[in-house]
């Protein structure tokens, strides 16, 4: 599997540390931060392929973080992580450009599969952009 860069954003420090470790074990270049604000700050200087983003966080919540992320990095794919499944948040997340939803507690295999698909999408998107087929930047979801 290709090694890609993953950012995990979750305010539950225990969960965050475990999952980052496990993803690294699976050969991914994974980083964790515990708030949306920190994630956005990190994105100023660094590049990630896929983000795992908790929906429910104090302060800046997942949806607001998602909106900001997609504005800054339209090609970066974001997978929402949610403890309490709700139609409303699902609808909003997908509308704002989330790639997928994963229910907590996340099964690692399932998460890996989704991240791989998200990464594939990002690559396809970028390839198309560089080959000029999609033309204007307006054709990009974000």
């Amino acid at each position, binding site marked *: 599997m290709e090694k890609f860069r993953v950012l995990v954003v979750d305010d539950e420090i225990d969960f965050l540390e475990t999952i980052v470790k496990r993803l690294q074990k699976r050969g991914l270049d994974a980083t964790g931060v515990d708030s949306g604000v920190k994630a956005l700050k990190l994105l100023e200087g660094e590049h990630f392929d896929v983000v795992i983003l908790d929906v429910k966080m104090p302060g800046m919540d997942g949806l607001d973080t998602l909106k900001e992320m997609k504005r800054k990095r339209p090609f970066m794919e974001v997978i929402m992580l949610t403890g309490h499944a*709700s*139609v409303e948040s*699902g*609808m909003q997340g997908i509308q704002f450009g989330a790639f997928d939803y994963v229910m907590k507690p996340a099964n690692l295999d399932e998460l890996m599969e989704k991240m791989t*698909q998200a990464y594939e999408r990002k690559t396809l*998107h970028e390839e198309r952009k560089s080959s000029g087929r999609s033309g204007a930047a307006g054709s990009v*979801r974000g």
Partner: protein
Amino acid sequence: MKIRGGQPRGRRLQLGVRGRDGGAISALNINRTGAPMSGSEPLDRAASSLVPPTGGKTRAKDSFDPIRHQLLTGAILLATTIVALFSSGAVLAVCGAALAAVHWLSGRRWARAIEKAREEKRFLDEQLIQSQKLAAIGELSAGIGHEINNPIAIIGQEAEWMRHLLQEEPGKTEEISDSLREIVRQVERCRDITQKLLNFARKMEPVFQGVDVNRLVDDMAKLVEKEAKLRSIRVIRIFQSDLPALFTDPPLLRQVVLNLLNNAMHAVGEKGAITITTSASGRDFVNIVVSDTGCGIPKENLGRIFDPFFTTKPQGQGTGLGLSMCHGIMDRLGGRISVSSEVGKGSSFSLALPADK
């Protein structure tokens, strides 16, 4: 275009020019013993400035009537010669031998006139499409205006009320924060509408990826399941296990499925069932059907549910953009969405996606 000629009728020779569809465009009557023509140079000029029949609607009978013909084409037919009167005012006489040439040239001229008419038709067609587009935009604008106006009116009222409270009864912080909450809610609503419209306008090109349909549908079902349980709505899955491979845009398809599930939840309200079925039609299509035991859709609304802003939800609850978005997405994915419904029994929305891309 075909030039038909040489039908002797009495002492006259008739020459007709036929359109491609066989209808007579024009015809000239001429006496066989016409006077010799006066040279080729004016003929050229004559042909190029010959006035084409107006509108191309000359009926066969009319076109053989010299006087009408004169009115229609600007050509004057005399007993022995054609004397063509051209728009330039030049007068030309031609006779038998030169007729073919005249007709060939004038035929070309008419061919050009027909081409011009076709262009005109194309132009008018485009105009029509354009005006239909404008009408659609007008309708859309009215919808947007209406949708955004309501929250704005509420925001205005609340702000006014807050100003009043702050001036007259500044101690009523509870009421002030109520108003603030309402304002935030209405702003959210405006944002929701504009976001949906932006998604519409963006027309992002789909990114096709291999998708496990059952898995994708199951994930979306999980998102509604918890809420469904609280409202005693059963979510039933009937999945075909050996579906053909599907290449589609996963997030776009998720959006469609989730919208259908959300509508179904709303239609059922409490107590009932939502059934999600996946199946294949041969190797060509994968179908996803979302059925509910909800209120159903009256016949008179069936044709309108995919229109932007069409909603029967109470003021402030639905944008009416859900299904039109689904329709737009299905178009872009090369698929189709259809509906069947019976009032009081329920509705069924079917998606068909091409299996191989």
